[in-house]
């Protein structure tokens, strides 16, 4: 812990921690706590039916109301943190790491590898994503795990391309030449000098991507390919509430608020991280 704080301090070089990182980090911390211990906060079992309270409006007993099965919306929103934080992280962390590494490599060496990478990117991105997801889910069966596979196959390309194009710019700047003159290994030049400068757009995009992953979960939920019932998941909850927008708005609005808040947490944190990396340079 102290080592981490030390690194952070050294990165900040005495400047104050960016406000957006504090705000975003707090939101994410709360989200994470909810995700790990949902039962501490949820007043009801998220899958418990109450036939006497179908589509009940928000009240003291059910602060966020109930859905068409009489399930407590608040409890479902809280339990969904577990699933949605998982989606946000699992669907993006692999692509981020892999994509960044590939992007750094390709951007630095260029030449044949870059051309090969270019074709791979083209093929991946030009292939309609939905066809791929439906194909993978149809073959492997529905569920979140297979959704991660589908997202991962496509997702890394975005990071790789972002990083590669930044690296290409950075490696021509004076300080990279300086590194080469100093006789540093390419590894050291890429990872110690170029990447920290080139990674900013990728990190910023990563934070957006986590929010996008939750949203994708919801689009897939609309098509029935995301989390399977009775799992509480914000996107599926919104899709479930679609027919009740006029009569029972609370079914979809509260999970929507949760998505917005969590997304805001990720974005603010992302901006904050970008800030630190900039300060460091």
């Amino acid at each position: 812990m102290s080592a981490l704080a030390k690194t952070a301090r050294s990165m900040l070089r005495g400047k104050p921690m960016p406000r957006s990182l504090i705000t975003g980090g707090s939101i994410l911390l709360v989200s994470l706590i909810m995700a790990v211990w949902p039962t501490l906060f949820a007043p009801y079992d998220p899958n418990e039916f109450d036939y006497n309270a179908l589509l009940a409006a928000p009240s003291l007993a059910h602060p966020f109301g109930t859905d068409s099965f009489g399930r407590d919306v608040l409890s479902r929103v809280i339990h969904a943190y577990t699933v949605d934080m998982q989606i946000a992280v699992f669907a993006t962390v692999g692509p981020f790491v892999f994509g960044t590494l590939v992007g750094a490599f390709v951007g630095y060496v260029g030449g044949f590898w870059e051309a090969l990478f270019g074709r791979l990117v083209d093929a991946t991105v030009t292939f309609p994503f939905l066809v791929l997801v439906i194909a993978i889910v149809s073959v492997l069966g529905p569920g979140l795990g297979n959704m991660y596979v589908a997202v991962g196959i496509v997702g890394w390309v975005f990071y790789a391309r972002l990083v590669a194009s930044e690296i290409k710019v950075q490696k021509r700047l004076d300080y990279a030449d300086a590194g080469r003159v100093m006789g540093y290994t390419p590894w050291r030049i890429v990872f110690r000098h170029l990447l920290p400068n080139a990674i900013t757009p990728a990190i910023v995009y990563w934070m957006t991507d986590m929010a996008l992953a939750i949203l994708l979960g919801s689009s897939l939920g609309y098509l029935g390919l995301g989390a399977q019932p009775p799992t509480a998941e914000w996107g599926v909850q919104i899709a479930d509430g679609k027919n009740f927008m006029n009569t029972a708005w609370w079914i979809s609005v509260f999970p929507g608020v949760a998505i917005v808040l969590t997304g805001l947490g990720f974005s603010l944190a992302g901006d904050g991280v970008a800030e630190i990396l900039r300060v460091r340079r």
Partner: protein
Amino acid sequence: MKNLITAALAATLLLGTSLSASALERGGTLTYGRYADSLFLDPVLNDANVDIWILSNLYDTLLLPTDDGKGVQPGLASEYKMSADNTSVILTLRDGIKFSDGSPITPADVAWSLKRASKKDNGIWGFMIESIDDVTTEGDKTVTIKLKHPDPAILAALTVFNTGIMPQKAFEASAGATEAEKAKSFGEHPVGSGAFVLKSWDRGSSLKLVRNEYYWGKGEDGKALPYLDGIDFELIPDDATRILKLNSGELDGAELIPYSRVAELKSAANLDMQLFPSTRVQYLTMNVRPQVGGKDNPLANPKVRQAMNYAINKPAIIQIVTHGVGTQQTSYMSTATPLHTGDKPLYPYDIAKAKALMKEAGFEKGFSTSILVLAGNQDQIGISTAVQQMWSQLGIKLDLQQVDNPTLTKQYRDGTFLMRNAAWTDDIADPSEITSYFVNSKTIEALHSGWKSEEADALFEASQKEMDPKKRAEQYAKMQEIYNSTGPTVPLFETPYPVALNKRVHGFLQIPLGNNIFAKTWKDK
């Protein structure tokens, strides 16, 4: 009071008489929102449900279903009778009937159309008229249908869309070498016999029909039907958008209103929310093979199936999924299907009995199984989530698997599914269609469940040739008794067709078989 008025209004529409204050008005175009586009509008060669509910507006049949969907009334034929030995049907065509291009509808056209429809491997609907052996003509009005064997359902079959009458000459003159190619080029500029004729078709967007000037039907004002100048079917797949468009007045009517919105639309001032009686039943199918995918299948045990049936609180499901619009099933076939028997709901909710049956079957601790759900289908998701919860009381762990339609169909046809959601609607005013699929093991192995009852099979075969209505009714009573007590399904509920219309629209009818009938529809200016 409001319900009374709605009921009275529905009744007047069903009777086809106008008691409403506004007087009949002719002309105008009706815009109607559909959830899916048609694929191919040939009465014989169409492949999908999206086509058949509107086909009867384009191609008229010799006989027509009655408005309650249970009987038969004259159509292009003004008179019909069975021969004394029940091996032929003699029909007399109406005077002066014409196709939409003004050419007369002759017995030759009729004979050609029916032969085309009954030809083996021509389309997929031929099974309903497999008894037709030959069709002969006499003079300019008489058509005789010769049967291979007595067929109690033949008159009802002559009301089904696939026996729609088409112009032989125009069809055969169409470009193309094969039947399918001709059907395709004929379909570009079709000549029909129904109340309307196709004007233009912008696939994926709209389908426009105009009135057939030569249609034989007469309206209340003594002049020719239809009242409308035309119908524009607009394709609006999203339920919420369809309803918004109706609310804004851009649509005159919209089909397949989600049950969750029926109450809301009933109270809308400018709308007339109709619930047309239907033959639709919603159920779950269970695979009853002893082994599925190399694993023992507890669903093979009839006691387990009965227990699972008893453990379902149907009124609760009806409330959750249909918001009170549905009713409990009293047999596997709908109450609107001819020869339906049963007046009590099947398997009333009884959790104690269910637990006892599970114990008897040796599954006191329950088991794990799975159910296929059509991806994104809110009704099926609702049903499956609810039964998952209800069966958990028996220790049954139900895994929901949302898959797309072809995947579902594949597992269904291969018999590799464990359970699935399904719904059924009759196409013909006879119990033989649903029974052949549900009960008879020789059609599709009783809904691909692997269920088989020698007795029911024998009864079904006999009933297909039984011309004595009383005896046939007894056979059907027995088949229903067998199936309802030991069959491979979980009957859930019957639902009406939810159609929302603008208040300015009158006289629209969707009969229990699903056919949308626009011939007597009119709208205020």
